Structure formats: structure tokens, C-alpha cells
């Protein structure tokens, strides 16, 4: 089967697309650049911080950001969070360091240990046994906080993540099935309902890219991405949704796009509806925006890191 744009052999087929290597690479890069432009994810004068872990999504978003920002003279750098997960994060961080070196990208690393005095490995059992908290909950809250704090400290105006079309369609369905439209209102290529001066705006350049397309892109570009899995991984609900969506996508190609397109159609109204309804205060300890007196990260730090 040949590429729809030239005589070369197609290596990618999805929905109505049939593309050879060259045309797949330009399809991918154009799509990301268009997403950045259409939603003004990166603008002149921005300093972009890319949240990077060393996984394929983060390498792809980092590489595309570097390409786009160099072309448009926008400042950018990579920021990694080392949670302290032995046998996992150390490996992905090694890959990330090598990648940044090869591509001449500035890399900053912040760690749970230097920020909270403990690694995730050290507080994991206590969190489960004594506080009934899953490692992923603790990890997610603390990582998000460190990304925001360090992005802010380093003068970033945007925080880019590797979230893709699969992630977004899964999150939308998960919130929908839980009846939580407020959470859906904070999805989208630019995260959040209300912008807050203490929150670095989060953006998703891979918003319209399928996970499979990212893997193919990194493969074709020769980026080193090995399949590694965090030992704490708990995907219970998400993995069910992920499998169902993949089944639907196989049966009815275009399903994930359909979900996200329909969602994007309703998003302005959703954001409007929930805007201002959860006015942020700032955390008394760290001045991050939060809904109560003390933010979730500071609460967790007190519970788990000050024994």
C-alpha cells in the first residue's frame, strides 16, 4: 500500500490517512505546530518549561518544543522531577539527560528528596498503611506542586506537558462516568478554568496526537525509549477506560478524535459555567493556589515527611 501523497510505501494507516515515513513525520510535526499556533500555547516573550520524564511523550513534546521555540525565538528549558522511585525513575532520567545533551537542551532537575526531605520510596509504605493513600495519589500531587514551584522559580510563563489525545479522551470519559463535569471543564489544550498568578499556565502541544503516533514518531526519529513501568503503577479505572477506548478505536477508527472534538465544541461553555466558582485562595505555607487554607502538597508533606 502506498502513501496518499507520494509513491513510497505507507508505514502509517489510520482512518483516512496512509503515509510514508517522510510524510508521517511532516504530518506529525505540522499537527503539533498547528496546535501550538491555534491555541497560542507558546507566544513571543514566553519562557516555556517542558515537564520531562524521559518517557516517549515527554521526549516528543520536548523535541517539538525545541524545534518550534528555536524557529520562533522563544526561550525554553526542560524540567524533570525525581520522585525517588528506585529501578524506574533513575533509568528514565538517565535517558532524559542523554537526550538533552544530544539536542543541546537545558535540563533542570528537582527532587522529592531535596524539596520534602524524603523520596517516594521512603514514604510509600507509610502512606498506604497509616494514611490510606495510594502512592500514585501522593506522587501526583507532589510532582504537580514541584513542577509549578520550580517552573515559577525559573521564570517560566508556560508549563508544557506530553498529554496526548489518548490521555485526554480517557480523562474526559473518566470524569463523565463519575459525573464530574467540573473536572472536565479544566481539561483542554490549556489546562484550568481560572488562571492564577501563582500558577504557571499548563499547555498540551500533543493534544491532537494519538499515543500510537507519538510512539511511531519517536521510533522513526531514533529516540531511545524503552518500555519501563513504574513499580507503583495503579491504573485501575484508567486502564479499563483505556482498553475500552482502544477496542472502540479498532472497531470504529476515529472514536478518540470524535470524543475530543465533541468535547472541544462544548469546552468554552463548560469553562464559562464553572469560571469563578472555585475561586482560589493561596496556601498559607507555600502560597500555591488552593481551595482551602493549606494546599494538598503541604498537607501530604506534613503527614508523610515530618515523622
Amino acid at each position, binding site marked *: 500500500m502506498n502513501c496518499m501523497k507520494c509513491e513510497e510505501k505507507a508505514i502509517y494507516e489510520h482512518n483516512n490517512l496512509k503515509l510514508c515515513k517522510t510524510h508521517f513525520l511532516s504530518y506529525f510535526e505540522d499537527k503539533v505546530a498547528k496546535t501550538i499556533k491555534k491555541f497560542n500555547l507558546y507566544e513571543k516573550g514566553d519562557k516555556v518549561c517542558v515537564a520531562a520524564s524521559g518517557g516517549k511523550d515527554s521526549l516528543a513534546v520536548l523535541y517539538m518544543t525545541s524545534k518550534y521555540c528555536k524557529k520562533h525565538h522563544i526561550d525554553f528549558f526542560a524540567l524533570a522531577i525525581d520522585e525517588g522511585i528506585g529501578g524506574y525513575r533513575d533509568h528514565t532520567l538517565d535517558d532524559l539527560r542523554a537526550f538533552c545533551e544530544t539536542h543541546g537542551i537545558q535540563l533542570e532537575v528537582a527532587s522529592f528528596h531535596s524539596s520534602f526531605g524524603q523520596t517516594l520510596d521512603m514514604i510509600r509504605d507509610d502512606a498506604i498503611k497509616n494514611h490510606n493513600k495510594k502512592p500514585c495519589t501522593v506522587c501526583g500531587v507532589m510532582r504537580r506542586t514541584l513542577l509549578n514551584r520550580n517552573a515559577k522559580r525559573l521564570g517560566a510563563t508556560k508549563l508544557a506537558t506530553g498529554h496526548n489525545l489518548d490521555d485526554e479522551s480517557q480523562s474526559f470519559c473518566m470524569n463523565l462516568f463519575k459525573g464530574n463535569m467540573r473536572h472536565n471543564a479544566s481539561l483542554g489544550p490549556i489546562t484550568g478554568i481560572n488562571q492564577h498568578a501563582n500558577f504557571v499556565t499548563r499547555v498540551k502541544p500533543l493534544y491532537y496526537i494519538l*499515543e500510537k503516533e507519538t*510512539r511511531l514518531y519517536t*521510533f*522513526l526519529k531514533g529516540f531511545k*525509549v524503552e*518500555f519501563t*513501568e513504574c513499580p507503583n503503577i495503579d491504573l485501575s479505572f484508567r486502564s479499563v477506560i483505556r482498553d475500552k477506548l*482502544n477496542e472502540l478505536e479498532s472497531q470504529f477508527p476515529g472514536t478518540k478524535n470524535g470524543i475530543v472534538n465533541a468535547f472541544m465544541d462544548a469546552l468554552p461553555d463548560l469553562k464559562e459555567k464553572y469560571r469563578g466558582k472555585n475561586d482560589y485562595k493561596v496556601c498559607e505555607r507555600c502560597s500555591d493556589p488552593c481551595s482551602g487554607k493549606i494546599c494538598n502538597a503541604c498537607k501530604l508533606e506534613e503527614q508523610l515527611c515530618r515523622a
Partner: protein
Amino acid sequence: MKHCEHVYGTKMEVFIEKSKQTLQHKPCTGAQLLKSLDINPQTVLLVRNDEVVLDHEELSEDDKVKILSVVSGG
């Protein structure tokens, strides 16, 4: 995971990245291979002798096939 069909004689080598398993399978198309291993094509890339191939392509006995996982963990 279902077991692959063992046919004596011609077989090709298949490496599955996610489970880090290597197995022998009789030559067939990519789609048939994934079906017999109960793998959803959305979740993997099919690689033959280090080149990505589409699911409908024929894989033959001398091919080294890799099934790369699309999802990342954590």
C-alpha cells in the same frame, strides 16, 4: 495471553517488548499475529527487521518481528 500456534518447520522469531518475551510463530500477516496473541493493534507498533510495517503485511520465516508497546507506564 493466548498461546501462539506452534507449527513445526517454518517459524519466525517474535519479540514482545511489554513482556520481554521472545517466541516462535508460524509466518502470517501482522494482523493475524496480533490476533493470535490477543493484542489490540492500537496498543503496539509492528516492526519487521527494524522497519515499521502495516498490519496487513505478510511476515515470513526469516523475519525478525518486534511488537513494541505504545503505552508508557507511570
